[in-house]
């Protein structure tokens, strides 16, 4: 009994109990290690399968020619890359200003309103709405977009309908991430600015927003990833044309949607996998950028 932890008078522990504790600890550790390993293996299996089946198909021709349709899925994926790009720009272009604007209102204006109980209450309701919407399955946004943009407003299956529906989809996350980013800006920055005689708007524009920039950028990039991988919303708003879109009112298909069509409606399974590889690589790059930005943000404290 030379273990200092277990010789004290108040401790009823015996050598045996100590062993049992140690065994439990080992067991727990082993189980945790195993679940970690299994999780990682499962994910690797997915990626490796897709990459092995798909990598061979990727060449410049695959990337730079458009699909030609048909049951054998001829052609490349050029128009789907372009359509994806258009949609990213469109959705983010709509959702980011709205999201950041709403977040500024929530964080900077509504929360410190002088006894304006009504607006504080409205903000709470809005927050609850935002949180709920963030958890709604994306097909609901798709159906909403179909009803409102495709049919009621007669935008048809088009980039415009898909962009608006996609913007609705990512708006809750845009608001949330922008809110979090604004909240990390120290109060002392705002006080310093106001104490110098700057107006509230100058304070937000020149101090708060720049300081929240990396956090807001992280949110934007996360949403880029979301738009790139989204299928349900675009399935019911974008149509499925494999041609290069020529205007906001053209239909089209994104890479993710193309992958779906290839897998379900053609025999070109390898091409579906090839598209998947391009998608995965894009997402990996995006995640690396997010990590870089977050690290930068964290380093600044």
């Amino acid at each position: 009994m030379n273990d200092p932890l277990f010789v004290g008078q108040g401790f009823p522990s015996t050598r045996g109990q100590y062993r049992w504790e140690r065994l439990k600890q080992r067991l727990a550790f082993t189980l945790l290690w195993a679940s970690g390993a299994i999780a990682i293996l499962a994910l690797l299996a997915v990626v490796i399968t897709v990459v092995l089946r798909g990598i061979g198909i990727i060449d410049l021709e695959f990337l730079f020619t458009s699909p030609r349709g048909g049951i054998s899925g001829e052609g490349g994926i050029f128009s789907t890359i372009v359509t994806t790009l258009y949609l990213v720009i469109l959705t983010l272009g709509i959702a980011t200003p709205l999201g950041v604007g709403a977040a500024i209102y929530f964080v900077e204006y509504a929360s410190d309103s002088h006894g304006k109980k009504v607006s504080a209450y409205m903000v709470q309701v809005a927050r609850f709405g935002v949180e709920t919407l963030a958890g709604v399955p994306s097909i609901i946004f798709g159906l909403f977009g179909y009803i409102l943009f495709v049919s009621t407003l007669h935008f048809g299956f088009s980039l415009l309908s898909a962009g608006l529906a996609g913007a609705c989809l990512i708006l809750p996350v845009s608001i949330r991430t922008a809110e979090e980013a604004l909240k990390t800006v120290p109060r002392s920055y705002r006080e310093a600015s106001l104490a110098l005689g700057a107006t509230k708007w100058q304070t937000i524009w020149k101090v708060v927003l720049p300081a929240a920039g990396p956090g807001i950028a992280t949110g934007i990039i996360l949403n880029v990833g979301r738009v790139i991988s989204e299928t349900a919303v675009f399935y019911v708003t974008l149509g499925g044309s494999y041609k290069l879109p020529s205007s906001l009112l053209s239909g089209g298909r994104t890479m993710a949607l193309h992958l779906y069509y290839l897998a379900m409606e053609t025999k070109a399974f390898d091409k579906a996998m090839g598209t998947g590889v391009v998608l995965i690589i894009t997402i990996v790059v995006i995640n690396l950028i997010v990590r870089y930005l977050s690290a930068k943000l964290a380093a600044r404290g």
Partner: protein
Amino acid sequence: MGQIKLEMVHYSLYYGNFCALRDISIQIPARQVTAIIGPSGCGKSSFLRTFNRMNDLISNARVEGRVFLDGQDIWEMDVVELRRRVGMVFQKPNPFPKSIFDNVAYGPRAHGLRDRSRLEEIVEQSLRRAALWDEVKDDLNKSALTLSGGQQQRLCIARALAVEPEVILMDEPASALDPIATLRIEALIRELRENYTIVIVTHNMQQAARVSDYTAFFFTDESRTGMLIEYGETKQIFTSPRDRRTEDYITGRFG
């Protein structure tokens, strides 16, 4: 006492139902250093933040009584104008995450100054007055966050000076600094006194005695409501206080 710069008349401050300051009347002289001393929680910061209306930012704060700057009611003035004339230096140095230049130029720019050479002039002059110019003149484009704590605080003073205020409020400006940086700030305060009215909160009695011309002693009882107990020339307060509580506090009989 000379010209009166700031004046409070029967001023009380409430946070919700809690009365933080009760019935304060005080006249603060121009171009002098006035120290505010007292135990923590007695309302020194609340008192100071009244003069540039920073308490207005606190949603449940409510005031009674009147406060004047050069005889003008501060609640009848434009708050932006008031804060240009009454600058503030905070307890913890709080430079913006911008370059040294942009920190000092922030105020003038916010007030509409765009002319680059004029801005450069102001930045240099402000940094000189804050006794920081020689240390930073070669790296004005470096981030202000790379400076030491003492330098950051002098930068914050320069930033406040750049809008050419008449009054500078300082809330324990040296409490986060080491002794050498503290002495530099104190020397700086003595110099600034030539041109500015300075009100400084400190819980360091030696500091109050060293830098100030007038001293106000705040105190609080079980109710936690802050009261102005005694106010007068620093020499008189420290050598022959009239109130028993002032004497006890100065001689260290309270915490």
